[in-house]
């Protein structure tokens, strides 16, 4: 076993593994290369104490971070994907789903639940990038829509944590219409004046950006998260040249007026609590 948990930037180790990593191991930051004890890194909400690099984390980390004592009721946990198009590319879609479920221990690319954050009621939907790139298919759309409906019914603020490459091509037209579905429910939530906070994390692109992620009463992000509609590769191919450094970073998106603020993950819970307290 290697002394360091080696990780390449952008490649995700299942959070399951990180959680079970025994104390005494070290985390090497893929950004500044400096090492931090795993325990300290975890206490720092999986952000680097040296350079503030935010490691990609999954729904279990965010739920643990935000819900008091990690207590929450998960909604629609058993919803899984169908295969309405009998889609086959290099692999049959149901096989892809099955192997991803086994690999990640997740049922799809979003988990939803309600609980208390510093004693305030809150509904959270949080995406998992590990599950086919956090792509949005029917399950993602449906679970988010239902979570919004729950928030609407109980007049509880809704927090969406996005992390997605965009649409799930294997659900083609069905995937596209999840953008419409989630936006419909958000329109209703907005009419009822129930607060909606959208946290865009690294990366949030494609159809997710072009629907619920950009529709918050408050759009917020983590430092240096990639946020965009078209992915950097597509833009590069369109314009035929390299993109300037920092293009489509959270800071860039803030500067152009599409984010309210950027918050460090370790400050997220307190800042959200202040925000919600001030509008309640």
């Amino acid at each position, binding site marked *: 076993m290697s002394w360091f948990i080696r990780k390449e930037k952008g490649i995700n180790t299942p959070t399951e593994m990180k959680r079970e990593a025994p104390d005494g191991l070290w985390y090497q930051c893929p950004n500044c290369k400096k090492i931090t004890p795993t325990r300290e890194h975890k206490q720092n909400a999986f952000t680097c104490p040296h350079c503030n690099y935010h490691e990609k984390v999954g729904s279990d980390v965010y739920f643990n971070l935000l819900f008091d004592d990690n207590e929450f009721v998960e909604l629609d946990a*058993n*919803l*899984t*994907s*169908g*295969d*309405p*198009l009998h*889609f*086959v*590319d*290099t692999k049959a879609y149901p096989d892809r789903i099955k192997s991803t479920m086994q690999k990640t221990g997740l049922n799809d690319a979003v988990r939803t639940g309600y609980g208390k954050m510093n004693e305030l009621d809150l509904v959270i939907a949080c995406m998992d990038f590990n599950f086919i790139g956090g792509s949005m*298919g*029917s*399950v993602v*759309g*449906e679970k988010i*829509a239902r979570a919004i409906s729950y928030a609407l019914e109980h007049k509880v603020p809704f927090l969406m944590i996005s992390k997605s490459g965009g*649409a799930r*091509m*294997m*659900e*083609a*037209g*069905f*995937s*596209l*219409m*999840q*953008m*419409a*579905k989630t*936006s*419909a*429910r*958000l*329109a*209703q939530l907005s*009419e009822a004046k129930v607060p909606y906070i959208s946290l865009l994390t690294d990366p949030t692109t494609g*159809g997710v*950006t*072009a*629907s*619920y*992620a*950009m*529709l918050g009463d408050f759009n917020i992000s983590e430092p240096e998260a990639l*946020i*965009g*509609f*078209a992915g950097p590769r597509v*833009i590069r191919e*369109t*314009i035929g040249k390299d*993109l300037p450094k920092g*293009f*489509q970073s959270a800071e860039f998106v803030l500067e*152009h*007026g*599409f984010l309210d603020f950027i918050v460090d993950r370790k400050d997220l819970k307190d800042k959200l609590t202040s925000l919600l307290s001030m509008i309640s």
Partner: protein
Amino acid sequence: MRTYLDFEKPMAELERKLEEMKTLAKENNVDFSDAISLLEGNITNLRKEIFENLTRWQRVQLSRHPDRPYTLDYIELICDEFIELHGDRQVRDDPAIIGGLANVGGQSFMLIGQQKGRNTKQRQHRNFGMPNPEGYRKALRLMKLAEKFNKPIVTLIDTPGAFPGMEAEERGQGEAIARNLKEMFMLKVPVICIVIGEGASGGALGIAIGDRVLMLENTWYSVISPENCSAILWRSWDFKEQAAEAMKITAKDMKKNKLIDGIISEPLGGAHLDHNWMAEELKRVILENIKELAAIGDQDRIDQRIDKFCAMGVVVE
């Protein structure tokens, strides 16, 4: 000069002969009418045969046929009056989306449509029908105007996608589309959305939240183009036919999967063969749907619109 797609080529030879025969008859003042009608019958039969067995990829090709009617053609052919309204009131006017007040047989409504170009210069001007955020914001501004003056809204969708450029990102392409989705659900007036060519992804959906979403027979509507789907899933551009089949992107597929409300017939051989016929049919369908939707109360219409889209998707409980 007509453009023939590869699968239209068998007809090209017969049509050339037909033209020759007609010219000959006219020049020499002879009656070839029997031979001409025989040949015309043959062409029709051949066309029927070919069009009964179109693949999904062939429909994609038809949706992009260079002679296919665009938004401006329909405006020209359908509207008794049309006053174009420009600009998003923030940045600029986006020529890839046209909007304005239309009067069709005494019925006025807001008409908004994506516009491709017919020649190189026009194509550049219209950005190949790929809107920037300003286009979506102009569309929303006009929809709100329509709502204010209690006029129905008709949108015509024909785009290879929202423009993936640097400035589009800087000005919030994602936000512009997202806002349209949300706002269109709450519009108090009837909204009819018709895919007249290509319906690519969020760029199409951004003006396609309606009480009636309809597709012309030879169009496609999906989350990504077959070419890009091929590039991503097969890691090669060569699987576009398979991608089109796998994604089930035709009007018939979308109707079967309950992702659209209906299909509008095209003339045999495709809309490009008879712009007048196509425009008449489109006009009939628009007026009919406006009439039906006007009979529903505003809140009921909004509720039905929301319920319809919220029912889309397949999950296992």
